[in-house]
């Protein structure tokens, strides 16, 4: 479906990670969206990563939810909203306010978040609102609060330009926050003395250009930073001047000295080099992300890092400080607005009676919960136990992304009343909803988001709301009104909500909290519409800038707290049955559960199916070959994914991306394998510490399919990816169908199309293609071993007249570009290899000049340089 025509051009913010890049949006006269980096946005200065560059491919209306749906039937808004309001009201009346819950998302704009939080905490009277930020940021929030008194990011992105040493720990910045990584690379180019250190069990893409890589044992970050703290003390680098702003130094040092540095598994040389760099350089920024947060000791890890910065006074000054980078466009906004079950709003504390009463008065709220609500993992346990009887899930996919995801999926499926607000019905979670509410998506909605360095930026609508879709704040406010809270939810515009929020933050400011944007409380509608990126705080007393250079912490005594922390291994222990450690994470070109990025052919081409990174020696010991499928089993669940044999992953550990879902690869729902173990302080799940068995999945047949239309097979393994011509699908199964031609007809739903077949029954090969009016619509390639065909060539064929499709490869005179490496310019590996080999292009710059590859977002530059390095090694060997 094509979007209706409209023409405009304006500034907005990218909807992916927490870098918060500014974008310029324009809609051409065909209704197609154009997206460019905003050269004036302070987060990105015009840069975009592969995901941001491909945004225009993600706004099609395919699979969009365009009308409210109740029990699978389309309906109107009034009926749907009345049903939601009455059901929530009845449930609360019958079972109390804690029998309902909202599970929301860092996808929500601040205004949406504010209304959701207000409705739940002020009017329903429960704190059962939690957000998927629990899965990525909660440990940072808890760590910040323990160290600083509030959830404050002390520094700004400018610190990355100023720093002399940048440490990445638990962060594959090159793939997960590529624009920040490119910013660091640009600085290093201008200032080659800036050092980059990566602390990660895996040798990720971020390591390719790093000066030092510390492949520490998974989960041993606390031991490492305790070792660093002890070293800081040993070298006499405790900042005595700053120490007056700090409490807990001695206890922290005692713990640090006592900790077991050997737990890191790092060699003395590597440790010494790291300690020399860190201790010997004043301007150090320690960036951390999910590798730190997603742990049963995530909060301790955060504090092990903040301890080092507090001890040396390296915080809140140019080029110094601990720096958390967030995974969602508005993870920070959600934290600020109180989207987590244990927070209130504007960094006020739910369990502080003064704070609570102030907010209650401000909202004229009838009731306020006095204790924290259920955090995500507890919340879905309560759903499974039937304690939560009405659940509203907004813009997130817990049936995929929660640990123990199969159980969460079953819990949602068993819940009495499930409302899902989303832009699509095609998610594992939306398919379980009783009521589906169509929301406006990115490009259609209007509000603010906060990025990792406290920059509030506007998301603006450039496209009309499709169908009956409405903004989330509107849906929430409507339900609030229909529940009887008319006065509190009389919002007409997001600007009104924002002003109310800003005014409330003034109260927080009055309590001495960090988050105060009261300076924006009187913003006119026009000024709100035109709001330029603004870093908080914005109040009469303070504007933007850094925190804590001169103390001023938000603890009761005003001192920054150092915490005595001790290394603890991940909760799950490897054992004979589960001898490997399972690390999970993200890949370069996908985001979260792929509901948006999977719509982009460009982004789907980089890595088109779920995979497990496994060390060559482990693979060989387990009998896993380079194209094999691998069966992963934990006590919680099982997955089947493709082997990617690489020594980037250490021995004894495997890595699997977390993106794939029941919509595109049901056997790759990796969070189904992750136990619901959480950090006791933050409630954040330990998503990177499961134990797992790794064995070959010996399928009886393997398949590769291309199709103009999406398909939903029922085989043991399948993985669907979008292409420009339709879809490509990997398949495998344990049961060999008797008649492949009939099987293919059923698979593609093509009972009457002209069929072409190639059958080699003795070898187990079957190839079936379907054509309509001479044009290819679908083809299936089956083999007893993983199918060897030119996938990228084939993927482009549907819709064309290709009588030779069943050959599975291009005729000799057509080169095969290979898998896409540069997503921005759609350049394949083979094209780059050919340029290296035949044209002798031996630098990333030369490749860029010749092929454009790597010249936009730059996220493929490490991979291109790896190709060049390999070619050089080969040349040398010859």
């Amino acid at each position: 479906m094509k979007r209706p025509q409209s023409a405009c051009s304006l500034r907005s913010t990218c909807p992916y990670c927490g870098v918060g890049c500014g974008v310029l949006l324009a809609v051409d006269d065909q209704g197609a969206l154009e997206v460019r980096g905003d050269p004036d946005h302070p987060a990105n200065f015009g840069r975009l990563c592969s995901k941001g560059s491909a945004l225009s491919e993600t706004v099609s209306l395919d699979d969009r939810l365009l009308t409210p749906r109740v029990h699978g039937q389309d309906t109107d808004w009034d009926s749907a909203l009345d049903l939601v309001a009455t059901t929530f009201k009845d449930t609360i009346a019958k079972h109390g306010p804690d029998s309902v819950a909202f599970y929301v998302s860092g996808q929500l704009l601040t205004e949406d978040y504010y209304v959701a939080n207000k409705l739940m905490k002020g009017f329903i009277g429960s704190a059962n609102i939690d957000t998927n930020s629990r899965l990525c940021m909660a440990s940072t929030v808890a760590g910040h609060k323990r160290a600083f008194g509030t959830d404050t990011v002390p520094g700004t992105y400018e610190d990355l330009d100023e720093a002399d040493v940048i440490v990445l720990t638990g962060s594959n910045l090159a793939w997960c926050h590529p624009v920040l990584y490119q910013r660091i690379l640009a600085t290093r180019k201008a200032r080659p003395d800036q050092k980059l250190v990566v602390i990660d069990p895996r040798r990720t893409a971020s390591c390719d250009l790093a000066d030092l890589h510390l492949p520490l044992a998974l989960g041993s970050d606390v031991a490492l930073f305790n070792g660093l703290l002890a070293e800081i003390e040993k070298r006499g680098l405790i900042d005595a001047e700053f120490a007056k702003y700090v409490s807990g130094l001695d206890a922290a040092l005692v713990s640090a000295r006592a900790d077991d540095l050997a737990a890191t598994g790092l060699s003395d040389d590597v440790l010494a080099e790291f300690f020399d760099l860190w201790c010997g350089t004043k301007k150090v920024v320690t960036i951390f992300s999910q590798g730190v947060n997603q742990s049963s000791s995530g909060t301790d890890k955060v504090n092990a890092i903040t301890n080092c910065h507090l001890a040396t006074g390296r915080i809140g000054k140019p080029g110094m400080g601990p720096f958390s980078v967030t995974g969602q466009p508005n993870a920070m906004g959600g934290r600020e607005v109180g989207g987590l079950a244990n927070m209130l709003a504007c960094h006020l504390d739910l369990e502080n009676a003064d704070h609570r009463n102030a907010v209650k008065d401000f909202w004229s709220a009838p009731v306020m919960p006095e204790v924290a609500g259920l955090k995500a993992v507890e919340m879905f346990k309560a759903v499974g136990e039937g304690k939560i009887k009405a659940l509203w899930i907004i813009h997130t996919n817990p049936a995929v992304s929660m640990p123990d995801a199969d159980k969460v999926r079953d819990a949602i499926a068993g819940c009495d009343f499930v409302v899902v607000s989303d832009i699509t019905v095609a998610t594992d979670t939306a398919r379980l909803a009783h009521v589906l509410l169509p929301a406006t998506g990115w490009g259609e909605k209007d509000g603010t988001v906060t990025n990792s360095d406290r920059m509030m930026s506007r998301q603006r609508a450039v496209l009309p709301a499709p169908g009956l879709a409405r903004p989330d704040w509107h849906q929430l406010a409507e339900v609030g009104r229909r529940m009887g809270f008319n006065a509190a939810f009389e919002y007409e515009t997001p600007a009104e909500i924002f002003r109310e929020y800003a005014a409330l933050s003034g109260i927080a400011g009055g309590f001495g909290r960090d988050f105060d944007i009261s300076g924006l409380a009187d913003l006119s509608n026009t000024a709100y519409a035109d709001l330029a990126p603004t870093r908080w705080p914005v109040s009469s007393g303070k504007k933007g800038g850094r925190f804590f250079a001169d103390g001023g912490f938000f603890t009761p005594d005003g001192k920054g707290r150092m915490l005595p922390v001790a290394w603890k291994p991940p909760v799950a222990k490897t054992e004979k049955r589960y001898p490997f450690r399972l690390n999970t994470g993200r890949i370069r070109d996908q985001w979260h559960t792929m509901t948006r990025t999977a719509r982009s052919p460009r982004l789907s081409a980089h890595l088109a199916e779920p995979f497990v990174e496994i060390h060559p020696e482990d693979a060989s010991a387990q009998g896993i070959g380079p194209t094999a499928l691998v069966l992963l089993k934990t006590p919680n669940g099982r997955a089947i994914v493709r082997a990617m044999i690489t020594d980037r992953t250490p021995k004894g550990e495997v890595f699997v991306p977390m993106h794939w879902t029941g919509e595109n690869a049901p056997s790759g729902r990796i969070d189904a394998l992750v136990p619901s173990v959480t950090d006791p302080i933050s409630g954040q799940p330990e998503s990177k510490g499961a134990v797992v068995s790794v064995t070959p999945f010996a399928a009886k047949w393997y398949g590769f399919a291309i199709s103009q239309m999406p398909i939903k097979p029922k085989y043991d393994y399948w993985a669907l990816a979008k292409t420009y011509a339709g879809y490509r699908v990997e398949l495998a199964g344990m049961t060999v169908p008797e008649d492949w031609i009939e099987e293919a007809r059923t698979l593609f739903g093509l009972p009457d199309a002209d069929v072409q077949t190639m059958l080699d029954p003795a070898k187990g090969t079957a190839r079936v293609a379907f054509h309509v009016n001479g044009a290819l619509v679908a083809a299936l390639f089956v083999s007893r071993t993983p199918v060897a065909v030119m996938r990228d060539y084939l993927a482009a064929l549907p819709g064309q007249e290709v009588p030779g499709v069943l050959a599975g490869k291009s005729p000799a005179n057509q080169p095969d570009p290979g898998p896409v490496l540069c997503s921005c310019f759609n350049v394949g590996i083979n094209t780059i290899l050919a340029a290296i080999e035949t044209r002798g292009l031996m630098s990333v710059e030369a490749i860029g000049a010749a092929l454009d590859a790597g010249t936009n977002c730059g996220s493929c530059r490490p991979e291109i340089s790896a190709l060049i390095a390999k070619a050089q090694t080969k040349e040398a060997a010859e």
Partner: protein
Amino acid sequence: MPQRLVIVGAGMASGRLLEHLLAQAPEAFDITLFNAEPRGTYNRLMLSPVLAGEISYDEIVTHDDAWYAHHNVTCRFGEWVIAIDREGKRVIGTKGAVPYDRLVIATGSAPYIPPLPGHDLPGVIAYRDVEDTDRMIGLGAGSKAVVIGGGLLGLEAAAGMAARGVEVTVVQRAGHLMNRQLDAPAADLLQQALEARGITVVCNAQSQEILADAAGQARALRLADGSELPCDLVLMAVGIVPSVGLAREAGLRVGQGVCVDDQLLTSDPSIYALGECVEHRGAVFGLVAPLFDQAKVLAQTLRDLPGCFVNKDVSTKLKVTGCDLFSAGDFSEAERRESIVFSDLRAGVYKRLVIENNRLIGAVIYGDTQDGGWFFNLIRDGVDVSALRDTLIFGPAYQDAPKPEPAAPAPVDVPVFMEVLA
């Protein structure tokens, strides 16, 4: 002093022999060429296109009078050879004897005429030469012909006549057309194509009798089931038999054909035999490719150079425009034989390759035969095709495609499975 070489028969094999000899040793022989047909060598294979009206007779003549004159070949065309005087080393023709030092018998073959009642009626012909072709061309549009035999020759004749507006019925004894060259699915496609051009095909049909009209002219073919197929002409196209009469009367060793060794020498040290009349190691010949091989070997032998005829597999092509088929080797079903089948019925393409011990031993192709020669070579050369197997049936165009380095994906951690491994 050149040797006296006499060649009996100016078919395609002897035409090829002459070319080799005259090219290699133009002065070595004093050559006399007998031919019962009143003309020299023409491409008999191309009679079907002549019949179909696609080309003219002149275009299929390979050696015309001027060519023979230029090469000083004495032509005795339209003259029958009555006998060979081996003692006197003379060939006796109806117009006189010619002495030889060496003699080549290339008398070819004759159509096999089954002893069906009425087989000798006027209006019953075979399909062998220009005269037969002219008979068929002479049938006017709207007249009816019955072709007995659904093999290569019968079908070409049927298509040729049909192209000229004749209503043709092909009567085939076997269950499907061209049963020696095609399997049933390919033959079905062929039958559909022939039916589409107005030819009626009756398979599993036993011919019983050719019926005559009052004037004694063939008027219908009666089948064993009692049905009658009325016709103006009956064409017998059920096979050929080597023409061995001359050799037999001369006392040479004769089996099904004139027996020759690997040098094409008969039981007489001065007499050689060539072409469809010979029997080599028990085999007789009906297709042109081995005959050309024989001609090449015989040219060596006549020049006293080493040469050895090896009877190789042959492939078949049907020369009916729009019905492309190709058949080679052995494609019968048997244990340890594996088939790769490609089918695209909408496009009218069917291919079956038969593999035994990882070697291609047979191929049947209908519809898209451009790769036939390549398959034929693979069969002939006994190439191990296991590495090509997945793309084998798609032909040579798909064998040399650029292959990404298998290790290429490793440095960027792209799984190897994304690429062709072969």
